[in-house]
């Protein structure tokens, strides 16, 4: 469901910086349905990838074979990302806060963490430079605290300062796609608010998974369930081994 909802956010021909897992599934679903000319960029250096199998990692050899361009990582970060060529960035994270700040670094204090997470990878700079980012994460009070323990990837407001004042070129996390609803950033405050609900979900269920008093758009959208085509592609073509779908 999340993969299908995320796929709909991608317009044909857009340049997308793809992370592994669900974002990768969403991008390849979009490519197989309404956006055949989506340009997939992986931070590993594959541009315009056309993987013949679902890549297990963002450095999978299937991303190279038959891609349009393979470049070094200096070029990925300077000529593509910092240059402003990435239209959509996908981010996930252990924690997402009220202003869309994301933590993939540590749970607990940095010097003595309870859980050491992998760290930024390319996420910090994707959050800063992509023209817009989409965040994908399952709702839970632990995953959506009011403040993250560590800001790995900045959202709309960091230390009280809005991102434009901090000089970030991209628009930041415009949508957060969860397993129950889609949150959007309020244009004025940068705060994440409820924007649309999955079929059969009550707003109180969303609030229960979020650690701050969740605002709401004046009129809530309704999210259509995945089409039969989407489900068939996801289950039988894109991820037959259920590497990502079961998660």
């Amino acid at each position, binding site marked *: 469901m999340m993969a299908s909802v995320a796929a709909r956010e991608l317009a044909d021909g857009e340049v997308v910086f793809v992370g592994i897992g669900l974002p990768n599934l969403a991008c390849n679903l979009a490519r197989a349905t309404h956006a055949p000319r989506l340009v997939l960029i992986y931070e*590993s250096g594959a541009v315009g990838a056309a993987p013949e199998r679902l890549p297990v990692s963002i450095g999978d*050899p299937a991303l*190279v074979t038959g891609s349009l361009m*393979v470049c*070094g990582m200096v070029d990925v970060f300077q000529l593509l990302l910092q240059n402003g060529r990435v239209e959509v960035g996908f981010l996930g994270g252990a924690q997402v806060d009220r202003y869309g700040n994301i933590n993939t670094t540590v749970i607990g204090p940095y010097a003595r963490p309870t859980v*050491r*997470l992998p*760290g*930024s990878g390319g996420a910090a*700079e994707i959050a800063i430079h992509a023209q817009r980012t989409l965040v994908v994460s399952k709702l839970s009070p632990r995953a959506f605290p009011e403040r993250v323990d560590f800001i790995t990837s900045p959202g709309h407001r960091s230390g009280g300062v809005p991102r434009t004042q901090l000089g970030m070129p991209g628009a930041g996390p415009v949508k957060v796609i969860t397993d129950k609803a889609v949150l959007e950033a309020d244009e004025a405050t940068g705060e994440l608010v409820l924007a649309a609900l999955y079929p059969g979900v009550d707003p109180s269920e969303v609030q229960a998974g979020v650690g701050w008093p969740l605002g709401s758009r004046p009129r809530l959208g309704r999210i259509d369930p995945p089409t039969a085509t989407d489900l068939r592609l996801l289950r039988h073509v894109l991820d037959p081994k259920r590497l990502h779908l079961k998660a």
Partner: protein
Amino acid sequence: MRDAIARFVHDGDTVVIEGFTHLICFAAGHEIIRQGRRDLTLCRLTPDLIYDQMIAAGCARKLVFSWAGNPGVGSLHAFRRAVEGKGGPPLEIEEYSHFGMVARFAAGAARLPFWPMRNYMGTDLPAANPRIRHVTCPYTGAALATVPALNPDVTIIHAQRADALGNTQLWGLVGVQKEAAFASAHVIVVVEELVEEAVIRSDPNRTAVPAMIVDAVVVEPWGAHPSYAQGYYDRDNDFYVAWEAISRDPDALERYLDDCVRGVSDRAAYLEKHPGLTARLKAAARFCSGVNYGF
């Protein structure tokens, strides 16, 4: 491999084994473990399984990195135990994002003391790492983030082919190997195939590393397994999945090192321990056409 590591990797050195998923030289990491090196500062964007093994084996004093996980699978548990204070040798860390690490290698390769970038505003990374600083643009007055150059003592890169002098060609994902090699005081190149100089000269645009910066050339087929070599063998994703359970359990990890690293003399012996591996992972043929260099 034994001689190259003995000669160019010393206790206390700053060591880089680069490769982004692709062409990670596990054979060199294993030889470093076998030779019992200590107090290394290990640098790499993605520490991957090989640094998890080296950390577990007690080779590392410090890790400089930007993403420490088992891609698509889970955690590097030896790394996590060290950082979370849950056993194993202590480990100092110095952390950047990928762009930061890439820029550190770029600065090192260009022999500049720093590299400027538009980055890190709004993140907690500069607070966690005081080596992320700022510089003021002499034209616009804008503040730009900086990272310091990284100039390792030795960089080890794996490649598809090189000639005997070390003129090296690689294709598929090339990561930051070229920059890491140029940034380094010494360079060890490990290749799947040694080729005639004429092969290199037939397609000079494909050469990434010239012999003038290479100190040793080691021929080690399958030296990147469980990582991969485009056109030679596929990534052993099953082993990456299996690592989750092995590294989660310190005893299992120790048994793995005893069995597959310290318990073998070299990569040939390692391959003998894994019957069927080469048949399972051997690459299919997808050759491109050549281009004309005539005039």
